[in-house]
């Protein structure tokens, strides 16, 4: 097949539909649903050929389109006549709403954006960290190095390990937050002697998640010194926790 398509990036099924509608200069209020459905499905086909990951939302929209198409083919039910709602009405409303926000997004993108088009004066040296000694902000990679030290301390995997209860990362997050609410915690103290490899890894991944979400900060006074963990913003902690729950459900 000759790939003549210049694939545009679509922000989901609504974006793709609007693209098809605009391409053919179709009136949003009078979409020829059969034509558009065929074109839409052809695009999904193309995505597949190009090995693009087609999110479930695209398939849901495909089903919606086919359902509307079939309803359009049915003769109006007896006695209902003209009062019957156009099967396309809900979709049209959704498209129009999305179109408005797409315009709002474009407008935002065209503004003079800080650190892209305009720059403010650089903030002066950190005002908030006056305590001694000065603490260095660590990166995720530093934490991974620290984990290797912890894993070294662990005994070799037993040959006949019984599969114990799985310790979910989501369960370790409240545990970590609880510990940190009591004050700064030293990294090594999170992994007591005798902790299982599973436990160590779950705790560590939970910690990575919290650091990544900037709910927890990893600090160090000197290179290769002990790592101190500190709650970044107390209220944010709850937020990250909720997001974790959402993403795992």
């Amino acid at each position, binding site marked *: 097949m000759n790939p003549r398509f210049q694939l545009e990036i679509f922000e989901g099924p609504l974006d793709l539909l609007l693209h098809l509608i605009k391409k053919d200069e179709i009136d949003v209020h009078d979409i020829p649903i059969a034509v558009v459905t065929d074109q839409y499905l052809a695009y999904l086909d193309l995505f597949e050929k190009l090995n693009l990951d087609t999110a479930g939302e695209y398939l849901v929209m495909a089903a919606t389109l086919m359902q509307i198409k079939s309803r359009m083919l049915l003769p109006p039910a007896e006695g209902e006549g003209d009062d019957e709602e156009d099967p396309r009405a809900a979709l049209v409303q959704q498209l129009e709403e999305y179109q408005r926000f797409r315009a709002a997004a474009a407008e935002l993108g065209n503004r003079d954006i800080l650190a892209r088009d*305009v720059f403010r004066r650089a903030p002066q040296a950190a005002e908030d960290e006056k305590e001694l000694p000065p603490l260095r902000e660590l990166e995720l990679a530093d934490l991974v190095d620290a984990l290797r030290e912890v894993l070294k301390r662990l005994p070799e995997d037993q040959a006949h390990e019984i599969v114990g209860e799985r310790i979910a990362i989501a369960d370790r997050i409240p545990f970590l937050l609880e510990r940190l609410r009591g004050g700064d915690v030293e990294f090594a103290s999170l992994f007591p002697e005798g902790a299982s490899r599973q436990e160590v890894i779950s705790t560590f991944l939970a910690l990575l998640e919290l650091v990544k979400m900037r709910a927890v900060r990893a600090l160090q006074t000197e290179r290769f010194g002990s790592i101190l963990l500190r709650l970044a913003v107390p209220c944010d902690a709850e937020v990250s926790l909720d997001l974790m729950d959402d993403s795992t459900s």
Partner: protein
Amino acid sequence: MDPNEDATSTETTIEAEAQERPAAEAHASKRLRSILESLLFSTAEPVPLGKLLAALPGYEKRDVVRALAALGEEYAGDERGFRLQQVAGGYQLRTAPANADFVKALLAQRPVRLTRASLETLAVIAYRQPVTRPEIEAIRGVDVDAVLTTLLERRLVRVLGRKDVVGRPLLYGTTAEFLETFGLKDLASLPTLEELGASADALEEAARAAEVADSAAAGGDASTEGTLEGASPGSRGEPEADG
């Protein structure tokens, strides 16, 4: 003596005073502009008018506002490299947009890039706040989990509370950083969705063209959906932590 003579001398005094007063006023307002320039130069964050007034005892609010406007006009000329702008409820000095490339070269930082996913999600939140994740997803027609996390991390969006419905979903809203990032005085200075409708297509095309140009400039690296690339002012020069 002659009453006429007396009247004339009084007149001349008034005239002289009238000539001195504008000169003195001009001096005072120059002085005020100079002070304000120092105040604005010394701060990176937008400074609310109230904070400026507190630092200017003895000055009338009316005069300060006038001096700020005068400074703004003075900077707006082509020959000046910065602008005085009202953002996020305060006054802030920022570089002239036309000089962006030079500043970027000096700071050697990757420019902040906002993906369409980020912008669309921000737009929905900005206009519909407080809004829940399912509500955003209903409008955009896609999952916004990843992009929302990024926006929260970048502090462009925050949690306002929980909606009192089943499941008590989190409610999201924009932050002062959002206003500062987009150079907005307040949320009310966003154009209304109706206003946008008219020029929607033109803008959208422009944005798409800009995005294409952007990704070409970035060496065509396939960027992850919903990421905000580039260094924030706080993490300048650091290698990327992820990506």
